[in-house]
């Protein structure tokens, strides 16, 4: 047993090394970075972070990203809940085909959709809004949420529904006050995955925005090419994009393994 624990430790070290390097870079001055190799920041500086927090074109990137990710998560879960309930409890015309078709959208390469999306959202005059990105990300997040939630709902016995009706609950009241609380782990896991995939996706987000809703990740690529090679700034911006993910994952840490198994993700 003792010998075995070396494997996850080495693996985690491997995972942490590039992250460490990014964080270390973010505390270095441009001078130090360009002058050569150093394992730790020699002249520790917060200037890179100061730039990000004082320059609106930087910090608005974060606000934009968080805004559309949140909107997407709310929309995805809100529409996926009733749909997942229908799939887990009822048989209806075309149910299997519909479920399968939903899942195929998870396989669609984003690159395939980039250009048509641009035209579609320009046509409906949503281009460069939070809603555009939030809706576009529904393409893969809704099927995923339906899939996860259906898995969790399948674990709830049908008797729960029947008991509630016998007790005189109306459907909306039963759904909101009894059913959703009993699958709140599933809702948490689904919301986590929506957040994750919307947060990390860039191709569509970049295609559908110009200025007003531009995500932080896109801001980074712009800055990297226009302002020369400001590695320290780039590293600081990158470091800051890890934090929201780290916070979200901390909240669902006890559900991750279970969520993966139950939700069949």
């Amino acid at each position: 047993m003792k010998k075995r624990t070396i494997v996850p430790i080495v693996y985690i070290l491997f995972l942490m090394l590039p992250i460490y390097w990014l964080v270390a870079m973010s505390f270095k001055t441009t001078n130090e970075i360009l002058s050569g190799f150093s394992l730790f920041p020699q002249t520790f500086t917060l200037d890179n972070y100061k730039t990000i927090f004082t320059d609106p074109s930087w910090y608005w990137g974060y606000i934009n990203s968080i805004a559309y990710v949140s909107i997407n998560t709310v929309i995805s879960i809100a529409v996926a809940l009733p749909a997942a309930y229908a799939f887990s409890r009822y048989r209806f015309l075309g149910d299997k085909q519909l479920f399968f078709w939903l899942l195929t959208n998870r396989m669609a390469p984003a690159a395939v959709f980039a250009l048509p999306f641009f035209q579609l959202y320009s046509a409906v005059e949503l281009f460069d809004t939070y809603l555009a990105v939030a809706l576009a990300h529904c393409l893969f997040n809704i099927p995923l949420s339906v899939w996860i939630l259906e898995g969790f709902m399948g674990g709830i016995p049908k008797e729960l529904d029947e008991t509630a009706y016998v007790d005189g609950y109306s459907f909306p009241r039963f759904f909101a006050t009894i059913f959703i609380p009993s699958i709140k782990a599933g809702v948490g896991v689904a919301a986590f995955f929506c957040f994750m995939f919307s947060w990390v996706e860039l191709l569509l987000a970049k295609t559908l925005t110009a200025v007003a809703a531009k995500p932080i990740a896109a801001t980074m690529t712009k800055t990297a090419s226009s302002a020369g090679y400001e590695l320290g700034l780039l590293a600081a911006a990158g470091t800051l994009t890890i934090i929201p993910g780290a916070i979200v994952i901390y909240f669902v840490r006890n559900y991750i393994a279970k969520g993966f198994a139950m939700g069949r993700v």
Partner: protein
Amino acid sequence: MKTENQKAWFFVLPVLILVAFNALIPMMTVVNYSVQETFGDNVFFWQGLDWFQQILRSDRFHAALGRQFMFTFLILIIEIPLGIAIALSMPRKGFWVPVCLVLMALPMLIPWNVVGAMWNIFTLPDIGLLGYFLNHVLGINYDMTQDPVAAWVTIVTMDVWHWTSLVVLLAYAGLVSIPDAYYQAAKIDGASNWSVFRFIQLPKMKTVLTIAILLRFMDSFNIYTEPFVLTGGGPGNSTTLLSIDLVKIALGQFDLGPAAAMSLIYFAITLLVSWLFYTVMTKDDQT
């Protein structure tokens, strides 16, 4: 078990509308482009299936497809066994479990272009940790902007870094769902570690592993941002995977017709392989 209820359609309607809006309209646009030729100014000419024939015969597409399969094959062959091995050696309970899981999941929560940028910084020959180590400590001549092999090793390593945890988490979820009695029975039956793996752990992980392989196949087949940021498809075209090539054609050259035809072929291949794999993996369950 389930009751027949056509009104359930009302529950799925919002999902249907949203996904259809995002999937069907763009898909129709793509189909539309794929059979036409344009010289700009919104003037289109009917082209039939010419673009499809052209793409299917083009060396450029074959090369990109070949690189794509190579990449997907490499990362599957590394990530799946590695993920299983790591999951097997993780502790089953205790304080360290959530710590391990959180740390392992971290790479998956980093925006994809940041992943690319991070690996770029990490591998810079003179100032990156890995680049410096390889060049100046081990004395290996490493520069992925010049050397295609180095570029390949780097994008594969990056993907392993990025996504092996997904396999670990799934495999681990399968492992912890095995009741203790199975291990105890195996001990009493005198089973070797290998037998325990072969006859208990692997069968119990089958469902989650199917999902892991499917997800990794689909996502690696669709990969764009990370290698684009890291290598830009280079040096030369050596790391130009399907999506990168597609975007080059569509947005770089604005050849909408060929790009659309390529999109459809590309999507069809993804669907076909996923479906084949899924059918083969689940066929066993019925018998």
